[in-house]
């Protein structure tokens, strides 16, 4: 996730942009290069996009329109059958509901907690450096390892959380955090938020650091209360960072596979699956075991997340915000 995040670096609003330069003669002067040279520099990126994005996308669409046997053997064209089968799948409504709950809960909680954390971490206090490092840790650990760790924490028989809760007499019998339908989604959301905090917090720290101290000082001189200063000055100036954090988190969280797959592996059926794990299970775990249906779900997933992101950007009028 960290590596792919870099792809978006050029859109970082805080990055200084070179102002348009007066037109000069082709190939001469600062800031202009010969098209061939430009192409040479761009070619690795272009090759990467073709190889890693376009080619798999084309293959995915092709697979979604093909019929496969359970072994993976190609059996001919399926037309739109796979899409029809996925869209009429009995468990799809549950999966969609889970996806919405998962994405909204994780992103909203992450943003709220990260705002508070970032606010704390820009203040000067002894040991701040170490706290900042500590915040990065969940980001540095592999998602599968983190998820496995939480499986152990949540465990019914030996889990630390149950141990502490029963020890403090909060509960009499342990709670099956992962096997009890009432707790499963909430337990997964906690992990989702935990691993999303570092990135989001650091986006906000960057955003807060970019706010000129003079503006805040001026508000203070004019008699604004701390809450007013935060609400009227800091929050509006943070909006570009909020926008980036929301969009990226929505995409990450929507696509999050390891957390749900690991924490939910004991539960049969699709009761706690999101579209991503649904896609995987269709291909390898469900009785359909159908690569074609899975590919169709994959195409639909891309469309869903594209539409969601576009609608969101439309609503917040991102052109204003990212200027």
């Amino acid at each position: 996730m960290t590596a792919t995040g870099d792809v978006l670096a050029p859109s970082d609003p805080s990055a200084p942009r070179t102002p348009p330069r007066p037109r000069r003669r082709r190939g001469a002067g600062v800031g202009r290069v010969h098209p061939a040279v430009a192409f040479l520099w761009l070619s690795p990126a272009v090759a990467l996009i073709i190889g890693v994005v376009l080619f798999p996308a084309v293959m995915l669409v092709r697979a979604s329109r093909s019929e496969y046997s359970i072994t993976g053997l190609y059996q001919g064209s399926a037309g739109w059958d796979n899409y029809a089968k996925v869209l009429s799948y009995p468990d799809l409504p549950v999966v969609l509901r889970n996806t919405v709950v998962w994405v909204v809960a994780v992103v909203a909680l992450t943003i709220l907690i990260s705002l508070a954390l970032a606010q704390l971490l820009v203040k000067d206090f002894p040991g701040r450096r170490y706290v900042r490092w500590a915040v990065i840790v969940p980001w540095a650990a592999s998602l599968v390892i983190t998820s496995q760790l939480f499986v152990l924490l949540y465990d019914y028989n030996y889990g630390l959380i149950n141990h502490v809760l029963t020890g403090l007499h909060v509960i009499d019998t342990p709670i099956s955090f992962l096997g009890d339908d009432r707790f499963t989604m909430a337990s997964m959301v906690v992990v989702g938020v935990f691993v999303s905090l570092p990135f989001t917090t650091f986006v906000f720290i960057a955003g807060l650091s970019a706010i000129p101290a003079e503006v805040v000082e001026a508000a203070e001189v004019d008699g604004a209360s701390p809450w007013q200063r935060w609400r009227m000055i800091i929050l509006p100036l943070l909006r570009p960072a909020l926008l980036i954090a929301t969009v990226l988190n929505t995409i990450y969280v929507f696509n999050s596979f390891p957390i749900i797959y690991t924490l939910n592996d004991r539960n049969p059926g699709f009761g706690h699956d999101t579209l991503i794990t649904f896609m995987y299970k269709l291909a390898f775990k469900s009785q359909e075991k159908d690569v074609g249906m899975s590919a169709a779900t994959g195409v639909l997933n891309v469309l869903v997340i594209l539409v969601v992101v576009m609608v969101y950007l439309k609503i917040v009028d991102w052109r204003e915000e990212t200027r």
Partner: protein
Amino acid sequence: MRRHTMLTGALATGVLVLTACGGGTGAGDASGGSGDDAEKATTISLMAAEYSKDNTKAFWDSFAAAYEEKYGYTLEVNVVSWDNIDQQSSTMIQNNQPPDILNLNAYASYAKDDLLYDSDQVLPAEVKSDILPTFVKYGTYDGKFYGFPDLSSARALFYNEDLFQKAGISGPPTTWDELEADAKAVKDKTGDVGYAMPLGPEESQGEFSMWLFNNGGDWKNEGDWVIDSEKNVQTLEFMKKLADEGVTQNNPARTNRADAFDLFSSGKAGMVVGFSPLAATLDEAGTVKYGVAPFPSNDGSESKTFGVTDYLMAFKKPGNEDAVKAFYELYYSQDQINTFIEKEGFLPVTQSGVEYFQKDDKLTVYLDTLPNARLTPTDDPTWDKIKLAVQQNLGSAMSGDPKSVLEKLQQTAESES
């Protein structure tokens, strides 16, 4: 405006990239090409399942060296974890680049798709006659033997001797009533789990098979699916009763086999259905005093064990027939197959292997039952789907109606076949 397009482009690319990444571990390894177009293949590839981190890769590497030395062919070994092997093999077949030999827990669907060599083409006759008849039977699809077994395991009842002693139980149960009483006694007197029952999606068909075979039931009878037979409904109802009485671990429907084994290995469960690799783990840790007994039958008649075997199947590819044949000749030679099975802690699949392993007293309980072991209907391609349906649905009987769960599975089986 330029900024607008750039941002849209960047975001759209980001969405695509991230979505592509989110799709999990796409199997990228397509090294199956083995000089297909050559007249005679001199290099063949093997995709093997990883039974253990320590032994599997080491065995196949030394096997490849012996293979090259003896026949002059090269064997490309690719050991894949059980979590990934379905994905990788499926991807390779989608790309029309299957491995020459694939080690998997199913074969019938591949035979149905006409991808495999049968025994007449690649298996030496003396090997076929050495393989235990049970495994030949379950490896035969449509009259031809395609599913060559690599190793096997048989299940038995593991019981914790310390917990049994504390609960005042003298020996392992021989009927289901005794099992129920023992489980209750363990639960009441020690507070630990009486019987650990894993009906989670990992392998619920295995647990249920053990029970239903010992109630005179089966998945298929004379070619017809009988999943919702009276015996099977009775079996599942009995299992549900145990869960309802609270003598099993919490939430059996949401417990995978590995978790049940963990419970037993930590001394917190009185009984569990286990197999030889569990015994190896327990011996190594040495903390639990346990006994192994045949799983009791409902009425006290002779126990039937549930056997499992995995397969080494050979894919038809131009020119690879001789090399594949040589592979099997070497694999089924005493030195190789027995070494592999011994290292991995499983059971033999050949008559000569059964004789060889008689030397180990600990295996007697399994070896005696092995020739009469009952398997799930792996010879029916429909089973490859039903197995998944059972894994995903059987557990729901614990909170619902066992009969209707089995009826639904029966309908699925009938509509698929």
